[in-house]
């Protein structure tokens, strides 16, 4: 049904989105927990940094990532010293870029879920002998589950849907960094409209189905909570 090149792009995109979503949940959860609970003066600056991808053109973020991960950038120096080479135009580079770009979509739902729990139930758990980690695992995590579902879906979908950062950081190497959105652009440039349409309709259907699922689940959760 799909051409080999299109199929490769789809597989790569799914792989990228899965890895990025997993990493975002691991990185985003402690950031969200800290933001939901801190009274530090650092909270507003950290929130602003996390939210930057909401407003920045992807090309700006991609540009700075490219420069910093390049052979002469600070991140590039570190990765080269570790023997990893440089990240731009590799799958790892794509992952790093996507993590930054999708971070707010994951942090904010989790942060809101944690904030909604409030300190009351965690205090109650403390009076019932639960240690801090225990309280987090048995009270905060289960109660924040709808936030995690939203975060994972949005993080995954947003990574699938990105274009600018991927193009800047990953380039357009078939099978290695050529994801669906870039592939579509390629097809259009080459006036292969049928090929472009094949992928575009898949992305459209995927995005619609994802959002439909998300809103349907949220409505059910809201109804259960009422």
């Amino acid at each position: 049904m799909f051409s080999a090149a299109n199929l490769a792009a789809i597989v790569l995109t799914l792989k990228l989105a899965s890895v990025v979503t997993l990493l975002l949940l691991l990185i985003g959860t402690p950031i969200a927990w800290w933001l939901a609970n801190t009274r530090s003066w650092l909270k507003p600056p950290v929130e602003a940094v996390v939210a930057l991808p909401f407003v920045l053109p992807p090309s700006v973020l991609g540009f700075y990532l490219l420069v910093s991960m390049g052979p002469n950038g600070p991140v590039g120096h570190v990765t080269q010293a570790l023997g990893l080479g440089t990240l731009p135009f590799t799958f790892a580079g794509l992952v790093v870029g996507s993590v930054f770009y999708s971070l707010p979509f994951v942090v904010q739902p989790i942060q809101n879920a944690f904030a909604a729990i409030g300190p009351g139930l965690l205090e109650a758990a403390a009076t019932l002998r639960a240690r801090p980690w225990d309280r987090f695992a048995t009270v905060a995590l289960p109660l924040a589950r709808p936030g995690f579902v939203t975060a994972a879906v949005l993080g995954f979908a947003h990574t699938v849907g990105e274009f600018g950062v991927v193009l800047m950081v990953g380039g357009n190497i078939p099978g290695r960094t050529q994801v669906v959105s870039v592939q579509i652009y390629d097809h259009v440039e080459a006036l292969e409209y049928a090929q472009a349409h094949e992928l575009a309709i898949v992305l459209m259907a995927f995005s619609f189905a994802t959002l439909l699922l998300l809103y349907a689940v949220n409505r059910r959760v809201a109804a259960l909570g009422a």
Partner: protein
Amino acid sequence: MTALVARFRHCYPGFGLDVDVRLPARGVTALFGPSGSGKTTLLRLIAGLEKAADGYLTVGGAVWQDANHFVATHVRPLGYVFQDARLFPHLDVQRNLEYGLRRVPPASRRVSLDGVIDLLGIGPLMHRKPDRLSGGERQRVAIARALAVSPSLLLMDEPLAALDQARKQEVLPYLERLHDALEIPVVYVSHSIDEVARLADHLLVLDAGRVSAQGTPAELMARDDLHLARGDEIGSLIEATVASHDDAYQLTDVVFPGGRVSLPRQAAAVGERVRIRIMARDVSLTLAAQTGTSIINILLARVTRIAEAGPSQSLVALDLGGTAILARVTRKSVDALGLNPGLAVHAQIKGVAIL
């Protein structure tokens, strides 16, 4: 015997707390005072949910906080009942109860879960989620959950305040059963004089972050200088014994040192101890014994003190012969009757409430 020694000094924005108290090892100690007096803060400091800059706390001889140590809440062997129950919404009643229990080593479990479930009458609720419970049921489950960890100290923060009158009446008897059944000292925060009168053995009055008085409820409630109960709510609490029942008129007589009063027929058996409360506004005074009055409780009393209670009102402290009560009369009446300490009067009591 002292169970708890607490010294805390801490400044919060707009409010300072400075207390130095010793609480008895047995029975219910009520922390009483108006909102903002620091009751809940003191309870949270005892629980370690807040940390005073300058604090010293020992419970049953164990140091929970001093200059060098601060024992974290989850290590303190206490039970805490919050005003808003705070049941875990994702767990059913059974798993809420087991949450704390499972974290207590078996060797330290002294309270039987079945006994607690029985005591609070929550057996039929075990498989319900908290959002399917009424306010009163939720609070009973919260109390059971706190007891299930076999605490050495039970802290209760206005457990009835969030309930309406009917729900209060539903939960209060369980609290009384608890009081009778448990050996655990209880610190009970309340701003309701009714609850204090029914439950407390020892009373600590807080005002603006400081302890303004402490003693037994009966002692403190007979003192007119305390803002125990402002305005209309001031009254006296008397420990009495049921003396007899009058079946024809459906009345019950109770006796206490210096007096005997009749009240509507009570279920309590003859010889049983009861607490009665006489509101100052329900006591009027006459110089001569009245005849032809509908009031059946008239007691001979001696005036011990007169205090002003507002522009037109006075509070008259009376000694019935071993028991103190208060009467609220107008200043005009004080002058008209020539009331003075030492004067013998007849106290007409319009209403007696059994608690």
